[in-house]
């Protein structure tokens, strides 16, 4: 099993990665340049699982080489489960990438990160409903404090690929 950590730039993904892996990072090419990936290990149910921090991207249709790397890493890891980190105060933009990944047939878990920021901005998200429509686990998290991480980790093995037409139906009608 392999996990890809994906998401838009500036959604707190690196803090997220640090929290998931603890000190288990094995390889890193100058983090913070946002163009190369970092690999590490996280523990799920007592098992060490490889996790890759993919460069931030807005879309799988790359507009620069960093996004190209992201799209390529997804293609090259056909068997991976994706954890998609979304800025909870900018859900729509995050869902765009998440849907693109799901369309490619990957099992996915959504982390609505920066939940506290969204609350400050008076943005309310019906997590249960979102989960129901998308058919994948959705967990709200605060990477800085660690809120929601235990739940997130417990969902990674549960998720399965979802067909788009089912989501469209559940969202109410034609796309």
């Amino acid at each position: 099993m392999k996990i890809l950590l994906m998401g838009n730039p500036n959604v707190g993904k690196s803090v997220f990665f640090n929290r998931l892996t603890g000190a288990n990072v094995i390889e890193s090419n100058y983090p913070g340049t946002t163009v190369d990936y970092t690999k590490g290990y996280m523990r799920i149910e007592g098992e060490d699982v490889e996790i890759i921090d993919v460069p931030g991207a807005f879309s799988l249709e790359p507009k620069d080489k960093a996004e190209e790397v992201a799209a390529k890493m997804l293609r090259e890891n056909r068997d991976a489960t994706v954890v998609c980190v979304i800025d909870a105060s900018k859900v729509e933009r995050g869902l765009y990438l998440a849907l693109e990944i799901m369309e490619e047939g990957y099992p996915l878990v959504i982390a609505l990160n920066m939940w506290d920021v969204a609350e400050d901005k008076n943005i309310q998200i019906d997590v249960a409903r979102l989960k129901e429509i998308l058919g994948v686990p959705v967990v709200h998290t605060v990477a800085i404090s660690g809120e929601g991480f235990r739940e997130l980790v417990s969902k990674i093995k549960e998720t399965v690929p979802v067909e788009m037409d089912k989501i469209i139906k559940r969202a109410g009608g034609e796309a």
Partner: protein
Amino acid sequence: MRKKLSEMLYGEEGMVTSIEDELKNKVAGMGIRVGKKLKMFTRQPIKGPVVVEVDGANTSLGLGIADKIMVEVEK
């Protein structure tokens, strides 16, 4: 009134009416799409880029890119 995004004035709000095809996919991931409301946040001098607000997020676009997006400005 219809105008180019690059012509919007500081503080103006408008709705995107069309985006040139080659650009459509590029800006879609950042939340800029037809039918979306956006607000001019700042304009840099000497043909510099603009910064617009979409869904509470700020995005900076070069003037040449902003030329290819049409908006319907309110009022």
